[in-house]
C-alpha cells in the first residue's frame, strides 16, 4: 500500500521529521508575517491569485478522503450540513441584491443570516453530541441564543469576525489531523503554533500608528491593473473600525490567509492525505461502485478545471473575480464547520 509523504530512511529518526515540521511551520508563519507587513497589497494580490483555487481543491480532496463510504446513522447530520452549506451560501450571495433593493434593511439581512448561521452550527453540535464519542451538548442552545442577541445588537461583528477567524480553522484542523496521524508531533505543533498570535501582536505593535496603506506598487499594477487597495480595506472592515490602523488590518488578514493557504496546500497534504491526491481508489466513497468512482474522478477533474478558470479570470479582471470568488468561497467556509465537528 503506497503512502504519500517523505520516505523514511533507516538512518533518519522519526523525531527529526517532527523538528523539520515544527521549523517549517515557524518559517512559513514568520515569512508570511514579514511579507504581509512589507508588501501587504502585493502579497494579498499574489496570495489570492496563486493559492485561492488550489487550496480549495486540496480541501475538497482531503474532505473526500475523510468522508465515510456510507452515511449510515450520520445521514441526518450530513443532510443538515448540506442544506446549511448550500442554503446559507445562497443567502449570503443574495444579500447584496436584497440590500440594494431594500436599503434600510441591510442590517436586518445580515442579522437574519447570522441567526441562521448560529443556529445551524448549534444544531450540528447538538446532533454531533448524540454520536460517538458522545458529550453533553445542551449548552449549545444558550450560547447560540446569546450570540444571536449580540448579532442583532452589532450586525457586522460576526461577518467581520469570520473574515479573521476562518483562516484559523486550518490550524485547528491541522491539530486534529496530527492527533489522528502523527500524535507524537502534536506537542511540537502546540509549541510552534503560538508564533501566530505572537506575530499578530508584533504586527500590531509595528503598525498601530500607521494610518494608510502604501498604495498599489507598479509591479502589482502591471500584473493586476484592476487591483485596488480600498477593496482590501473594505474586506477587512476598516470602515467599521476607524480607530484601528487599516494597514494593520490588511496585513493581519493577509498574514492569516497565507498561513491558511500554507497549511492546506503544503502541511495537510504532506501529513493528512493517506495517498497521493490523484489516487482516486484510496477515497472511501469511490469504493461504493464504479459509478461512484467515476463520479469522484469527474468531480475532482472539474475542480482542477475550475482552478484553471479562476486563474484565467484573475488574470483578466482581478477585482471582479476576487469579489465573485469571496462570495462563492463562503461555501468552503461553511463546509469546514461540519467537517471540523466530525473530526473532534
Amino acid at each position, binding site marked *: 500500500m503506497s503512502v504519500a509523504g517523505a520516505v523514511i530512511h533507516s538512518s533518519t529518526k522519526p523525531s527529526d521529521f517532527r523538528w523539520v515540521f515544527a521549523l517549517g511551520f515557524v518559517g512559513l508563519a514568520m515569512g508570511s508575517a514579514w511579507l504581509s507587513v512589507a508588501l501587504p497589497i502585493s502579497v494579498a494580490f499574489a496570495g489570492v491569485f496563486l493559492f485561492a483555487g488550489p487550496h480549495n481543491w486540496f480541501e475538497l480532496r482531503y474532505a473526500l478522503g475523510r468522508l465515510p463510504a456510507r452515511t449510515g446513522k450520520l445521514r441526518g447530520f450530513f443532510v443538515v450540513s448540506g442544506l446549511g452549506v448550500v442554503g446559507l451560501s445562497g443567502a449570503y450571495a443574495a444579500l447584496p441584491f436584497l440590500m440594494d433593493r431594500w436599503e434600510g434593511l441591510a442590517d436586518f439581512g445580515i442579522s437574519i443570516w447570522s441567526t441562521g448561521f448560529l443556529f445551524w452550527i448549534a444544531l450540528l453540535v447538538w446532533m454531533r453530541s448524540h454520536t460517538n464519542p458522545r458529550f453533553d451538548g445542551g449548552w449549545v442552545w*444558550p450560547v447560540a441564543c446569546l450570540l*444571536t442577541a449580540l448579532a442583532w445588537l452589532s450586525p457586522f461583528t460576526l461577518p467581520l469576525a469570520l473574515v479573521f477567524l476562518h483562516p484559523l480553522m486550518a490550524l485547528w484542523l491541522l491539530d486534529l489531523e496530527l492527533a489522528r496521524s502523527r500524535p507524537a508531533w502534536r506537542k511540537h505543533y502546540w509549541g510552534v503554533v503560538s508564533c501566530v498570535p505572537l506575530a499578530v501582536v508584533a504586527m500590531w505593535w509595528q503598525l498601530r500608528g500607521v494610518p494608510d496603506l502604501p498604495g498599489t506598487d507598479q509591479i502589482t499594477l502591471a500584473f493586476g491593473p484592476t487591483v485596488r487597495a480600498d477593496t482590501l480595506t473594505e474586506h477587512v472592515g476598516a470602515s*467599521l473600525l476607524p480607530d484601528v490602523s487599516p494597514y494593520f488590518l490588511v496585513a493581519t488578514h493577509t498574514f492569516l490567509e497565507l498561513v491558511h493557504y500554507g497549511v492546506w496546500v503544503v502541511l495537510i497534504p504532506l501529513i493528512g492525505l493517506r495517498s497521493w491526491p490523484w489516487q482516486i481508489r484510496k477515497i472511501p466513497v469511490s469504493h461504493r461502485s464504479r459509478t461512484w468512482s467515476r463520479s469522484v474522478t469527474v468531480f475532482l477533474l472539474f475542480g482542477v478545471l475550475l482552478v484553471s478558470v479562476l486563474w484565467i479570470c484573475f488574470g483578466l479582471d482581478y477585482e471582479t473575480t476576487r469579489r465573485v470568488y469571496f462570495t462563492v468561497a463562503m461555501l468552503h467556509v461553511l463546509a469546514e464547520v461540519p467537517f471540523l465537528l466530525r473530526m473532534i
Partner: protein
Amino acid sequence: MLRILLTMAILFGTASIVRADVPVPPNVREMVTTSPVAVVIAGIAAMFAIGALGLWAVKKQNRGDTKDQ
C-alpha cells in the same frame, strides 16, 4: 440558582427592550445597531439564552441526582 438566572433574564431583557439611553463612543456607533426592532429582538434572544441556560443547568443537576441514586 434558577430564580437568580430568571431574574437576571427578566432584568436584562427589560433593559434592552426599554433601550436605556446609554451614550456610545462615536467609533462604536456604526458597529452597534440603532434600530429599536433589532434591540427588542436581541433582548428576546438574550432572555431565551438565560432561560435555556437555566433549563440545561436543571437538567444537568437532575442527571447528577439520578446518577447518585
